[in-house]
């Protein structure tokens, strides 16, 4: 979707302003949002693509005026409500009034290291050969799905070269919407900076973007 999350190439946000000696968390509430987001995700009620979609569907004005952990908190509360794990009223009061739903699993303290270490690989077994060989020219499709996609606006309609393949990976556009993993070949596509941003860009420079096969057409 063409939401506020798709930031590549926008102007006007000001300097980057890195914070010297930045702590991992700014205050206990950030710790809380981080740990709750991870712990609840381990219940298996949703996947990472659904989490990202919950965040990117925030009102653009809210998204752009929030810190990242504020965005995470809003996304977490949205998913909890959508999937009936908790009501908005319960979340506001902090008191349970509805019985909990049965979840697939609960992360225990002793399993944290093992669970984090295992992670959540998205590569799946390849059923077919990749359509595009390394070195071939492709064009990113000029599509504007109003749903979750990982095809950023700034490459749509532009021509690039297949720089490498990453194997077959879960397709976020379906996985975010309960339509299954539908894995596809994932490519590293090299776009010349001049192709994306015009002739004023240095001819030496490139942008590499990871794109699924169905985002691409032969060029």
């Amino acid at each position, binding site marked *: 979707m063409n939401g506020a999350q798709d930031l590549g190439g926008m102007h006007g946000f000001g300097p980057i302003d890195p914070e010297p000696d930045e702590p991992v968390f700014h205050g206990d509430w950030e710790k809380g949002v981080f*740990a709750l987001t991870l712990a609840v995700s381990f219940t298996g009620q949703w996947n990472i693509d659904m989490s990202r979609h919950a965040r990117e569907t925030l009102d653009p004005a809210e998204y752009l005026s929030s810190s990242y952990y504020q965005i995470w908190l809003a996304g977490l509360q949205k998913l909890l409500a959508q999937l009936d794990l908790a009501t908005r009223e319960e979340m506001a009061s902090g008191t349970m009034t509805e019985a909990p739903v049965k979840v697939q699993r609960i992360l225990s303290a002793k399993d944290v290291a093992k669970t984090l270490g295992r992670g959540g690989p998205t590569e799946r077994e390849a059923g077919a050969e990749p359509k595009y060989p390394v070195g071939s020219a492709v064009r990113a499709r000029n599509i504007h799905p109003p749903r979750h996609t990982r095809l950023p606006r700034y490459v749509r309609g532009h021509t690039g070269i297949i720089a490498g393949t990453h194997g077959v990976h879960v397709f976020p556009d379906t996985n975010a919407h309960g339509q299954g993993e539908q894995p596809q070949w994932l490519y590293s596509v090299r776009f010349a900076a001049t192709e994306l941003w015009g002739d004023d860009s240095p001819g030496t420079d490139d942008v590499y973007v990871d794109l699924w096969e169905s985002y691409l057409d032969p060029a």
Partner: protein
Amino acid sequence: MSKSHDHHHHGEGSELPDIALRVKSLESLLIEKGYVDPEALDVLIETYETKVGPRNGAAVVARSWLDEEFRKQLIEDASAAAGSLGFTGRQGEHLVALENTPDTHNMVVCTLCSCYPWPVLGLPPVWYKSAPYRSRAVADPRGVLEEFGVNMPDETAVRVWDSTAEIRYMVIPMRPEGTQDWSEEDLAQLVTRDSMIGTGLALTPDQLEAAKTP
């Protein structure tokens, strides 16, 4: 996205108690519902505050500077190479190492969210997740580098890697001059977080010395 870390030292002052209360309420509710174990929350926080951070990535880079076999493995299969030092898992399942050379400088961004190689770099800094960096890194990487104090020569190609999928990238900075006889532990001190994102270079021995002097 806030322009920077303004929730930290200016603005949003009146919002802080409110969000802290909202998070507390949510936490008690989710514990009461039995969805989360409070002890697991503490372990998660402790893990990313004390165990998983850029020191991990610095150890990977220092090893690659000293051990040619390890360097080759890192370029071939970074997940396996980092895993051999004990750095595996969430947000690093499919890790790729990008080697800087005199001809090529690599820089990593996630324009769509905040994708970052957690097992080797820890959790991302605020600026990496914020609109100024995410918007400009792909369109004006040399301008971004200048803002970080790095002037990239015209003849050096700049490659920006947008983490749009589950592949996570770490940059292997060039080994600084004057470090021939250095141990792996000492070399690791030259490897900053930003040098592994590609918004910085590894410290020179002089810069390290200056950083240590209060």
